[in-house]
Structures are given as structure tokens and as C-alpha cells.
């Protein structure tokens, strides 16, 4: 109880239970196989529930799991059985909303994979080694996104062809939508 509130894992899975991005902060799952088994467990036990409007919660094998689904993405935050459920839910909400902001509302698997770097940075900004760093979605997204704006800043470092390539990519992306 005297422990700092801690998160054991954050999982982002697709609609088939495959990994999009996962992060573990506890030694409870020493091997990749154990992690995958846990993910499968979490996924199958929550799959049939409707967690699209409000975050849902489940508990098994001494883990509290809070989760929320959108499109074909399943967001999970898990903690120990004694953890305050509402703290975990706050972390989940922060992660969920930050991803929404970063992907500009197009939250689906494809968009998430295309911007995987943003998702990974986002995870990095929410929790550090199990300790909650930040739960405010706008702050998290701000920290992650700051670079995508700044990226263009040192223009001198970009060659003209690189600039063109960037422009082309932006164009194709917007056309494909």
C-alpha cells in the first residue's frame, strides 16, 4: 500500500488481439511468450464487452485491467490487484485521448501503425518505469508533437529534394484519405 501508484503494462492491440504497441513495466512477464499469453488472455476476456463509450474494467489473475476500444484498436492499462482503479482509468484516458489528438481523430490501426513513432513516444511520455509521468492528454500530445512541428525548423539542414519528398508524401497521404 505504501507504494507509489504504479502501472504494470500498457497495451495497444488490434481487433484480432495482435500487438500494435505494448509496454511492460513489471517483471511479472519475464518472456515474450508470457507477454503474448497475457495479451491473448486480456484480449479474449474483454473482446465481447462494449467499451466504446466508457472505459470498462475487468479483473483476473491478480491484475486490474481497464480498457477502451475505438474502431479496430483496443487500449488497455493494467495494474496490480491493490491498485486504485480510478488512477489506472486516468492513465488510460490520458493515453487514449493523447493518441486521438496525435492521430487527429483518425484513430484506427492503420493510422496508428503509420504513426507508430508518435505512439511509442506517447507511451514514453505517460509512464516511466511504472511510475506515472503525466496523465493530461493535451500535455502528453504536446510533448510528443512538439517535434513534428519543429522538424521542419532547421530548413537549412534539409536538401531541396528532401523537402520535395516531404511535400509529395503529404500530398499522397491527403489524397489517399
Amino acid at each position: 500500500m505504501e507504494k507509489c501508484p504504479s502501472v504494470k503494462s500498457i497495451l495497444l492491440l488490434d481487433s484480432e488481439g495482435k500487438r500494435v504497441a505494448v509496454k511492460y513495466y513489471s517483471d511479472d512477464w519475464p518472456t515474450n511468450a508470457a507477454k503474448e499469453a497475457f495479451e491473448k488472455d486480456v484480449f479474449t476476456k474483454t473482446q465481447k464487452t462494449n467499451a466504446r463509450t466508457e472505459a470498462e474494467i475487468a479483473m483476473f489473475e491478480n491484475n486490474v485491467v481497464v480498457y477502451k476500444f475505438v474502431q479496430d484498436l483496443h487500449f488497455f492499462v493494467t495494474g496490480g490487484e491493490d491498485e486504485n482503479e480510478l488512477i489506472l482509468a486516468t492513465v488510460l484516458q490520458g493515453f487514449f485521448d493523447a493518441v486521438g489528438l496525435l492521430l487527429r481523430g483518425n484513430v484506427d490501426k492503420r493510422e496508428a501503425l503509420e504513426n507508430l513513432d508518435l505512439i511509442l513516444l506517447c507511451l514514453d511520455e505517460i509512464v516511466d518505469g511504472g511510475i506515472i509521468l503525466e496523465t493530461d492528454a493535451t500535455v502528453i500530445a504536446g510533448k510528443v508533437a512538439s517535434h513534428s512541428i519543429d522538424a521542419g525548423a532547421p530548413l537549412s539542414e534539409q536538401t531541396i529534394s528532401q523537402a520535395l519528398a516531404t511535400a509529395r508524401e503529404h500530398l499522397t497521404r491527403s489524397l489517399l484519405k
Partner: protein
Amino acid sequence: MAQPLVKKDDDHDDEAEYSPFLGIEKGAVLQEARVFNDPQLDPRRCSQVITKLLYLLNQGETFTKIEATEVFFAVTKLFQSRDLGLRRMVYLMIKELSPSSDEVIIVTSSLMKDMNSKTDMYRANAIRVLCRITDGTLLTQIERYLKQAIVDKNPVVASAALVSGIHLLQSNPEIVKRWSNEVQEAMQSRAALVQFHALALLHQIRQNDRLAVSKLVTSLTRGTVRSPLAQCLLIRYTCQVIRESAGNTQTGERPFYDYLESCLRHKAEMVIFEAARAITELNGVTSRELTPAITVLQLFLSSSKPVLRFAAVRTLNKVAMMHPMAVTNCNIDMESLISDQNRSIATLAITTLLKTGNESSVDRLMKQITNFMSDIADEFKIVVVEAIRSLCLKFPLKYRSLMNFLSNILREEGGFEYKKAIVDSIVILIRDIPDAKESGLLHLCEFIEDCEFTYLSTQILHFLGIEGPKTSDPSKYIRYIYNRVHLENATVRASAVSTLAKFGAMVDSLKPRIFVLLRRCLFDSDDEVRDRATLYLNTLGADGAMDETNEDASEFLFGSLDVPLESSDEPFDISSVPREVKVQPLAEKKAPSKKPAGLGAPPSGPTATVDAYEKLLSSIPEFSSFGNLFKSSAPVELTEAETEYAVNVVKHIFDQHVVFQYNCTNTIPEQLLENVTVLVDSSEAEEFAEVASKPLQSLPYDSPGQTFVAFEKPQGVPAVGKFSNILKFIVKEVDTSTGEAEDDGVEDEYRLEDLEVVAADYMQKVGVSNFRNAWENMNPDSERVDEYGLGPRENLSEAVNAVINLLGMQPCEGTEVVPSNSRSHTCLLSGVFIGNVRVLVRLSFGIDGEKEVAMKLARAPAAQQVNSGKLREFGGKTVAAREELRPDKRDKKRKRAGVREGAREKSRETALEVKFAWKKRKGRGRSDGICEELFMGMNREVACNLAFLTINEKGKARMEGWCDGDGLLLLGERRWRGEEEEEGKGSTLAFTEKDGWIEERMRWKGKMDGSSWMYGDEEVEEQHRVEKDGLGCRFDEVVPVIEGPIGEGKGDLGSPDFRVSSN
């Protein structure tokens, strides 16, 4: 037309499957990573490659050592680029690769540069990366920057440094502890999360210092902590302080309760919940304290957020275990949760209701649950079944509807674990509620008619074989059993044959018909079934050829045999099979990891160990003549935990005898014990005479064995007495590498704690289903009423439990639970006293303002078997029992036990044995040595400091003392042991505590000369001071601060090498 349509679908599928990482391959990506080495870096492309690498790692791909090193070195090149985004990816990559220490050096300078960069983002991230990968030596180099970062204006940077500090504290505590001042400054930060991280770190730095934690909590609970997370943390720390300062709960207000209560009005839900949960978990929480927390949780129950509902119902579920009355207010809200979408919430609601429900609401509840059961998963159903089982044991009158419910769900679909839970519950109910037996057995019979699980079928058949013949009409079960012989697989058929034989052995009237059935089984297709049928026909004497008595036959059928499994050439002879069975260790082993998923499983029902004991005892020829076992007590430990030999004893009560079963465990791998016996001195138990004992041949390491001692006592008399025990054995050394024991052993003995046979041992816990009926049916003349004063007690529930334990009777109708703070209570008890006298007791308790408890005891044996002589005896025992309860008597007893006990009682701390060794100390001319001291009743830190002061290498110095509530030693006394015993006589030692210092004042006769001393005639007074806290005393490093002694001499104590161990 169809063709293009299909094609379009295919296209669509392809698109859905599209992923930027489709077909990604490790080798190719590693090749791509070469772009990191390009002289003209392309940040975009590099970022993409890093993302790919991270993707691979995230999917569970691993890099070999060489690959990881290569990638790492390539990535370090990217520090040249000034692209912010790329740098962030580089940080991530380095953290993922977790480089070895020689690799870390490569990036250290780059990271240190970033740590001092003007860009906040760089600073924060570089700190986190560097702290993640750094080791102790590097840490001293960057410590200065980290301290700066902690007080950085930018909250992100400060948080990064603080969180890193929390992680580093595990590996480099002494460095992080030096940051205390900066962390304290960060506590004042305006940024909410910085405050949270600072609080977490500050607490961890001080966690070993209770006083400092207490001060921290006191100051913060007064001020305003901004962040909800920090508030939650503070609540947790507050609870810790409350727990550790426990002991003054009865004297009015609990410290900090007001703070917790004020948190219930916080605006953040997480804080409200944390506080509510904290209140419910307080030790000995009163209903007045609980009420506001329960009210808040009740509001959460109707929240629209599932997480909130779950959190509330889970907490209430836990509260319901201890304080069912407190939760009843929420029952209406709870009932609406039964239909909750989230099945976890619904199950928790149901089990809570089952715990808080009263007798009248059971039926309604069962109706609601029936609808609910069909749509939840098996794991939830098991939780519900267990809750129903405990409900049924609580309200035996309701067994009919609960049993019906169980049998209904038994018929529905379900997996093995679920069915097993139901069958187990029915079996337990049959065992504990006599009225439920017949209907329960019939339900089980119906179940095996259509049971797909062989294991359950055989278990039920076995159970039927034992219970069925004892019912009023055993013949009605035969049909079900014989049906199995026709319809089932060989395993079930074989056990059905055994069950039939048991009916034949027990019920004479059925015998001829059973023979007919068994003879039919002789033509079964399976060997085992035929063999069993033949064997049983012979044993039961169907052919008239066998002249074995009926008793032998039933012993053969119901006893357990230890059949050797190895095949031998000699013809098998049943008489060569030993009757003595190796029983499994009876101590209940509970795997701590196997918690029932927190959904509040009820306490497991009474285990059927009595049967096992009965079998065990009847298998020992010496005890077989003692008749039926009346009662076996729970194991009583005769040794303390973690001693060389662990021994507990089970008292078996027979009509004329008492058998002590000593369960011994040898915990030393290097020893083999042989010929283990217990020497029992019964001089304080006059009515007992030893008649037999059974030694244990050999007791190898870690495999428990039993030795028995039997006593004779007057028939039917509840004789009491005290026995002292000595374990005697021959010890043989064992070579642990080969496992072989040496040939010759040494005789040795080991003193065990005393054992008492008390009145409660003669009382069987047997419940009645309707106490009022039973009470009214008894002979009014046999009723006795007595009144007792029980002296001051903490609360009623303590008094009730003490009396229940003393009488050893079964509480009925859940009356053992006393609503907290109530001033009177009636408790109903039932039991069977030795000589088969049914006894009912109605206890009325009352408590007055001075906490004096009065008790009125009315008791009556059931009508038919009134035996006034026995009753009088029982009455006598209760009076004796009452005397034991009187506090003044208890105190006297304690006084006899000596000061040691007293010290323990006063301080609530355990004794601390300190053993330390030291190297030669300056000046005093003492040699190296080891000293052992026993410190009692003080907190570890103080003990460690004092240990240093009282070094005495010549013998054992013993010091006894006690401390006040804060764990401070107030007064101490040292007794000299060993060579100094004579010379040191008359020395006195006193400790006082003042302004955070412990003062030691020592008077002795002798002479101080500079730094050396010797005994003599002159009075010497010495005084030392030790700072109580602020030393950061730890068990392995004690560096006390000694100020020069007042008076003569100097107390230079050098730097001893301390090793302090405690028990």
C-alpha cells in the same frame, strides 16, 4: 457479374491488411540502419528506420549481442543531427537497447551535453535516458546536474529528474539520499505532478525512519497538496503512519482520521475513492468511522462509469466480510447492479449481497441469481457457488432453497471446475447440515445419472458408499448405483461395484440383493470390475465359505490400505499389506500465490480432517481398542516458527482415552532423526495415566512424521490438565551430497512447549438448523443460568470470541458477529459434549461505559439425554473457564512468567537480538571479538545505536528495558554475563531520551585512564550520547555519533565492523 464483385472484395481485404510494416524483416532493417552512417544525414529516413527497429523489438523480435552493439554504435552517430524528432527517437532506441556499461561511455558525453541544453525537451529526456542506463560510478559525475534538474523551473525536467531518482534509489540509495534538500524544495513546486513525484521520492528516501515519515505526513496533511495523484499518495502514507502508531485506538480519536474524512470531499474521484478505501481498511474501524466512506461508495455504485462502479463494489465486497452490517444500506443499489453489463461488477454485487443478506431476503435473492447465472462465465459462477455455500452454512434453515438452487445449476451446462465446485458444496452441506443429507444425496444421485466427468462420478459414488448406508432408506440409492454398472466406462463401473459392496457390508437387509447384483458384475468385460466383484463377494461371505467377521469386512472396505505397487513373483497376500497408511501432512498448505482473483471467495469450509484422523488412528493397533473418536482438536504449535524441529500436536479425545498426535518436521538437511518419541510429563494432570506410545522410526529432512502418546482417563469425564513435553531422538549426520546417513547417532532431546487439555476439547462443534425450536424442545428443568463478570474488555466482540473459544462450541445463525460499537449482544452456541450430550448455550453480553463486560449464560442439554451429573460437571468447567477469563488472574499468571513477558507486552515490539563483531578498537586494547546481546522492546534503529554503546566482548551483556508508544527506549538496564558478572556487579546503566538524543548513563566501579579502563574501587560515571535519528541507521551499517563522555576519559570507539542480525 459475380466475378468483379468478388474481386473488389479481395481488393478491399488487401487494403484492410495493409500495414506500413507488412513483410518487414529483421535482416533487411538492419541493412537499412546503415543510413545512420551517411555523412549527409537524412533525419526523416533515419527516424523511419528507428521506428522500424522499434517495431521489431515491440513485436518480440530480439537482436543478438553483435546486432545490438552494431545498431547501438550506428545510433550514436545520430547525435550529430540537430533534428528534435530524430533525437527523441534516438533516446527511445538507446533505452530499448539497454547498452552494456562499456557502451554507455560512448553516449555519456552526448547525453550530458543534452542535459545542459537550452531545450527543455532535451534536458528532460536526456536525464531519463542517462539515469536508465547509468551505473553508480557515472552517477557521482552527473549528480550535480541532477540536483539542479530537480529544482528546474520547467516541470517536465523536474519530474524527469525526480522519477529517475525514484528508480536510482533502488540501486544507489546513498547518493539519492543526499538530494533530500532539493527534493523538499521541489515539493513546493506549483506544478501538480512535480509535487507528486517529489512526495514519492521523499517518502522513499525516508521510509526507514518512522518519525520522519510521521512528520512529513503531519505537515502535508495540514497544507494543501495540489495534485490528485499526490493526494492519493499522501493518503497511503497516512495509513502507514496510522497503522504504525496503532495501539491508542480506544482512547478517543484516531489520529489523521479527520484528514482522511476530509479527502472524501475532494473534487477528484480518485482521491475520494482512495480515502474511502483507506478508511475501510483501517484496523478495528468503527461503524461511525465507516459511515461516511460507505456513503461515498454508495454514490459511486450508481455512477455511469463502469470503473467507478467496479471500484466501489469491490471495496464494499471486502468490507462486507468484516462488517456486513455496515454495507446493508447499499443493498438496494447493489441489487440493481445484478443486471450490470459488466459481469465482474454483477458478480461482486451478488457475492456482497450474499454476505450481507439476512435470512428473510435469501429467497428473493436466489430468484434473482437464477436469472443471472445463465449468462456469466464459469469462473464467476464458481465464485457465486462458493458464496452460496457459505450462506447456507450461515443459515442452515434455508438449506432447502439453497440446495435446490445448487441442484438446478448442477443440471445446467458447465465445465468441470464449475461442476466440481457445486458437487463439493453439496458434499459440505450434507456433512454439516444433517437435515440436508437425504435430499442432497438424491441430488447427487440424479447428477451421476447424466454426468460426463468420470472423476466426479467416482467421487460421488465413493461418498454415497460412506453416507448412503447410514440413511433411513438405503435401498433407494441402489438403483442409481447399479445403473452405473450398466451405463458407464470401466472406471466408474469399478467404483460403483465398490459402493455396492459398502452398502452390502453396512446394511444386512440388503445383503442378499447386493450379492445378486455383484454376481452379475462377474461377467463384466473389464478385468478390474470383475476382480472387484469377486473380491467383495468373497469378503462379504456370499458363498458362506469365508468366516471373516462382518467387522473385518467393513474395515477392509472402509479402511485405507497401503498397497505396494511393484509387482513381485510371490503370490499376493492381503495380510502382508501394512494397515498403517502414510497420511498426507495434515497441515493445510495454502499457496500464497493462488488467491481467488480477489472476488472475495468465502473462507473455505471446514475440512474433513476428522475422517482422516479416525482412519489413521484406527490403523494403529495400540489405539484400535479405544472406540470411536469423539473429537480431534486443531493442531497446536509446540515450537516457534523456524526452529530446528517443528512440532505441532493434535489432541484426539476418546471416551476413556486421549491420544496426542505429535506431527514432527525436521528442518535440518544435514540430520536424520531416528526413534523419535515424546516424553510427556503428566504430573500436572492427575487424572491421566500414560498407557501407550508409538515412536516414529525415522524422520528424514523435510518429510513430516507422527509419533503418538496415549493416556487413559476416567470414562466420560472431561478431565483437564497440563502436560510438558520433551522430544527425544537419536540424531545421525547426513552427508547432503550423497544423502546417506552415518551409522552411529547421538541421543539428544529438545524441549517443547507445554500442552493443555481444556474443557473445550470435550465439546464437538455441531450446529443446529433451528436454534429456537431446539431450545424450546428441551426439558426446561435442565436449564441453568449463571451470570459472570468478565472484567474490562476492549469491545464486545473480543469478549464474545474469547468465550466461544473457551467453550469450543459452534456459533449458530451467524450470531458470532458482533456489530461494532453495540452495547449488548446475544450469541447462540450449540455443541455435543462428551458422552453425547447435546448442549445449547445462549450467551447474553452487555458492556458498560468502563468497558466492563457482563455475561449471562443459559444452557441446556437436549431433552432426552439429560444427565444431571454430566451437566454439573460441565457447569463446573464453565465456572473454571470463567475464572480464566478474569483479567486479574491472567495478570498474575503473566507476572509469574517474568519480566521478559512484561517487557514484550509493554512495547508491542519483538525482541531484537543483536550480534556484532568488531575489529580492534583504538586505545582500549581490546582484541577482536563477537558479542551477542538481546535487546527487547525498542525500535531497531535505537537498538542498533545502543548495541554499539554496550559492547562487551568478555561475555554476553544482557539488557532489558521497554519503550513508550513511539518505540523509544526510556530506561534500560544492563546485566553483565560471563567473566564480568562478578566484577561488573553493581554497575548500572540508564538510558534516557532527550531532544532527539539517547543518553546513556553508566555507573560502575573502576578507573578510567584516557581511553583505557579497568575495574577498581572508585565510582565512575560515564555518559554517552547517541543521536536517535538522522543517523540513517541501517542494519548493516551502524555509525553512531558519540560525543565525548562527561566526566573522565574519552570515548573513542573507533569504527567497528558491524553485523547485526535480528530475529
